[in-house]
């Protein structure tokens, strides 16, 4: 017999206490670490950099430098484009993949599909990036295939460019897209689709009227996760970008090496704000979308 905490005020209190007990320690720990780290970051971002040393004098000059130099706007724009493109491709590829996995009946094939999808996570990001160096090079596998198929007359540049970085990011982030969608699709009650079919809906109608709307939570979670990870990617742009792909994590690393910590802290703050703003915006969008669906019902 399952507990019915919410049935009485006492039960509700018990449920609340249980939730606090379960969530409390982790929430307090994570919030404390986050807040302390953010405070240090913000204080450092306001300090003065002499060119060789950081001086604990509040000047905010790193902010002025960052927001008045169009170079940084270009970097932010390139980063957003890269993250949006990667997320879009991951969703377009990931959704059908997740959907297809839910349709596989043989357990052996399901396991094989899981291994295939999640295999990128079994190797380190550096090893994966070096693998892409070989595959995407002018004399690499992709260019060899393109030439053999007479799709191009000469090898095309796939490496040391945004193309190669996008391809590699899609490869590494695809599992993070597939998993949230898959978990939502697997939770969808098959009886709903059966009921729709009984009432005369075609398979396509059943998908678009039942499966697709119900998979939205997974879709949003997948989009958010993929976008955040793409925004924070460091190794892939570093190794495959060849200097042509400049993103904030690379600049943060370089400024830390140069001991220009105020500028690194400003860049990190901007990155955090961008990611949080996107999360917040997409959450609002999601709620609005849910409300629209509720209205339709």
């Amino acid at each position, binding site marked *: 017999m399952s507990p019915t905490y919410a049935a009485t005020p006492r039960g509700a209190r018990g449920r609340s206490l249980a939730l606090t007990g379960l969530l409390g320690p982790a929430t307090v720990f994570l919030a404390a670490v986050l807040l302390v780290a953010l405070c240090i970051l913000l204080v450092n971002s306001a300090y003065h950099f002499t*060119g*060789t040393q950081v001086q604990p004098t509040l000047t905010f000059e790193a902010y002025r430098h960052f927001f008045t130099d169009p170079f940084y706007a270009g970097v932010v724009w390139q980063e957003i484009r890269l993250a949006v493109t990667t997320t879009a491709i991951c969703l377009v590829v990931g959704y059908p993949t997740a959907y297809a996995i839910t349709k596989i009946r043989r357990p052996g094939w399901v396991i094989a599909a899981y291994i295939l999808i999640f295999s990128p996570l079994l190797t380190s990001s550096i090893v994966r990036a070096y693998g892409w160096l070989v595959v995407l090079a002018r004399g690499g596998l992709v260019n060899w295939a393109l030439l053999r198929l007479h799709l191009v007359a000469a090898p095309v540049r796939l490496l040391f460019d945004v193309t190669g970085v996008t391809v590699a990011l899609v490869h590494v982030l695809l599992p993070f897209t597939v998993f949230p969608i898959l978990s939502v699709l697997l939770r969808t009650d098959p009886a709903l689709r059966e009921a729709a079919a009984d009432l005369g809906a075609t398979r396509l109608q059943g998908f678009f009227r039942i499966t697709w709307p119900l998979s939205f939570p997974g879709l949003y979670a997948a989009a958010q996760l993929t976008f955040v990870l793409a925004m924070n990617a460091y190794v892939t742009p570093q*190794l495959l970008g*060849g*200097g*042509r792909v400049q993103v904030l994590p690379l600049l943060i690393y*370089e400024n*830390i090496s*140069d001991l220009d910590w105020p500028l690194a802290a400003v860049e990190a703050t901007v990155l955090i704000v961008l990611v949080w703003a996107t999360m917040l915006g997409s959450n609002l969008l999601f709620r609005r979308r849910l409300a629209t669906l509720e209205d339709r019902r």
Partner: protein
Amino acid sequence: MTKRRHHRITRRELLHQGGVAGATLGLGALGAAVADLAPAAAAPAAGGRKVALTEFIWIGGGQGIVPREVKASFEKTNPNVQIELYEGTNAITYPKMVAQRQVDPNKPLINFGFFNVDAQTKGELDGMWLNLDPQKIPNMAGVYPSYHRPGNTGIGWGLSGYGLLYNKKLVKEPPVSWNDLFAPRFKGKVMLFDYGSGGGFNDVLGVAYANGGDAKRIDAAFEKFSKAAQDGQFLALFTTNEQVKDSLARGEALVAGYFTSFAITWNQESPNGDGPFAYAIPKEGMVAYTYYFNIIKGSTPDQIDAASAVINTYLSKPTIGRYCNLTATIPAVSGVSLKPELQREPVFQPSAVKAAILPDWTTANRQNAAWRQRWDRDVKGKM
């Protein structure tokens, strides 16, 4: 004058350096076998009291072999000393040391170790290093005078020549000048070490000095790189050895500004020692990139004693010779034996050392952050 002499190495010192390099090669002639490590000092380090040390060493390319041998040998003869090896790169480790100093200046992340000229100069400007005591490190006397830093904030032990690497199987006419990085025949086939990764500034400095500039007159060099980037001269900027090694080996890149020693070690790693790599010393001179031993402020007196003793072991001729032979580094210690293969290499010749560019690293380091931003904007941003 004295101050300037301490921060920059004069032409006269360079000539002297060349003489020492010549003597070095002479002493190492006839294929002398690599000697065993020098025995540790007879008296126990730190008066026999228990002491734990963290030593910074470099990662990859055979860099860890000698430090591990020294650690084992030193700990055996000094059982009271425990050395923990901290492997990394200067670009990553030095900022961590600065961060740890902010947390607790009396508990440094590293007690002593190897640092390149970039970190050495940063540390001088930043007050990171302790003054080494020649009484505790008598082997400092064997180090070539121009590798002693003012106030003994560090002691040099070797240098690498930064020049031009190329694929000898594909490049029939080797590059001869820093300006060949911009030659039309290499268009789209040039790779450069990214500035922020600790090497790109060598290319900028090499081009600056080759065109009548120096660390204080760098604008013309940046303009050359900027224009070339816009014109598609550069294949890519690299940040790891594997990227440039792989691109050169496959012929995707033909030329790269980099440390000449890598052409030697990469060829040795190839089957039959016949790799496609070669290096050219630009006629204007290779950039001499020097390496130092340092002890970090905040270390305890016992740690300083023990670290000094370990550094003294490193600076013995057999030990530094073994290190240089394994890593194709030009020794800064006189009388060091080099293996015959290295003696034949042009980069080890006195004439090359004499003609090397020794940039004004103090100026370069003061401008480091500004130059890196300029590189990002004017070179990377235009590729």
